[in-house]
């Protein structure tokens, strides 16, 4: 018996048999494996959650490269307008699953021409105001070329 113990201490892998013939005792029980598997699953889920957790359509409003608001568009009921503190002034219309620039005072109105953003990966930019609205979420395209 003492030989069996010393072998187990000598090598980690030697201690791995699920059943010790000499002792007829289970060294690793089924519960241990299930627990280890559960631990692994929880860790994997946490990691995936950290990396890929974006189930809904979320609008991100950025001014001068700084995020100033994030809005879950799926939770928006009705609609409302946000006035951004920019020069020139720009307004953003927030609706259920849509966001758009409206009534901007910029000269070329390119931001308004972008229309309503309803899909992940799309963005509208007001260059003079350095304001950007973009939509994030799961699914959809990785990028848009224009």
């Amino acid at each position, binding site marked *: 018996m003492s030989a*069996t*113990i010393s072998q*187990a*201490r000598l090598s*980690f892998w030697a*201690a*791995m048999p699920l059943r010790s013939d000499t*002792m007829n*005792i289970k*060294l*690793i029980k089924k519960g*241990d494996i299930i627990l*280890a598997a559960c*631990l*692994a699953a929880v*860790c994997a889920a946490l*990691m995936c959650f*950290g*990396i890929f957790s974006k189930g809904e359509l979320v609008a991100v409003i*950025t001014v*001068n*490269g700084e995020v100033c608001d994030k809005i879950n568009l799926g939770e928006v009921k009705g609609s409302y307008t946000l006035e951004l503190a920019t020069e020139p002034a720009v307004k953003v219309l927030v609706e259920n699953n849509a966001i758009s620039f409206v009534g901007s005072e910029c*000269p*070329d*109105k*390119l931001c308004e*021409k*972008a*229309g*309503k*953003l*309803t*899909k992940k*990966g*799309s*963005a*509208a*930019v007001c*260059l003079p105001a*350095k304001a*950007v609205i*973009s*939509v*994030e979420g799961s699914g*959809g*395209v*990785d*990028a*848009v*070329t*224009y």
Partner: protein
Amino acid sequence: MKRSVLAPRLAVYIAAIALLFAVASGLGMSQSEKSDFAMDTFVSVKIIGKDSDGTADAVLAAIKSLEGDCLSRTNKESDISELNLLRSISGANPATLNALGTALDVCKKSAGAFDITLGAVSDLWDFKSGAAALPDEGLLAAAMSDVGYGSISVSGSSVSIEGNPQIDLGSVGKGAACDSARELLAQTQTKEAVVSVGGSVLLFGQRDFEVGVRDPFGGASDFAGVLTVSSACVSTSGIYERGFDLNGTRYHHILSSQTGYPVQNGLVSVTVVSESGVLSDALSTACFALGVEGGMALAEEYSAGAVFITEDKTVYVSDNLAGSLELLGGYAAAE
């Protein structure tokens, strides 16, 4: 006896937890999304990898430095500004030489349909103020008389221009930014990245990416089709972004090197896929200027993929992209 059974079990737990930590830290995956303004447009960077935050900052800094040190026409200290002012520079940055060299090659292969010496001509057009006004014809003719990429000579890191043309690398700047981003990302432990410099996009990573091709007649969330590409750069030139409408004509920013006026050939957008950002950017403009037939031949010469969309919503796709483009409502492939 009790101890002897506990020891291996404990060892298994410790090993399992150590393995999980090892896997977690080995992947070390974090995701970062950052944005800034550069190259006269909005730049966004999405990265999954080790130290994604630091990498995203570094990518944005690299793009800003490319603009400020190399390609800008407004920063007086950039290579291109100095070249335009002094008519000759030496010791130009490698990124400047790369962008310039590739752009000049496209100028030659497109027989001048693409020309990077339209700087003074495009300065006469105002696509930003919202005022729908044509440039003075006399001034336009004078500026056109200086146009000609043949006046540029590159020798090692020295560049010189004969005559008066003004170099404008605006048509390759966004693509060059994608190239400098990729160069930097390749030196980091980045698993995947999407860098958008305006409408020019870098897809970096070992997977297929989906890229929406903007519907020229719709908004930013409307696509004419969706391209599936692996690591590549994608650029588009279209008439819908910068331009104005006057007396029923669309005046847009893709200027003909022959007339100095916007190219009017029935195309509304051209999208090009290439490994090189500079090439995808230059070719999207060049292919637009050449039209479907000439543009398709030019793209093929560079083994690039191309998607041409006409004003009647017909789509011409190069053979190498035929299976990679899913067209959406209202758009039909040419027969």
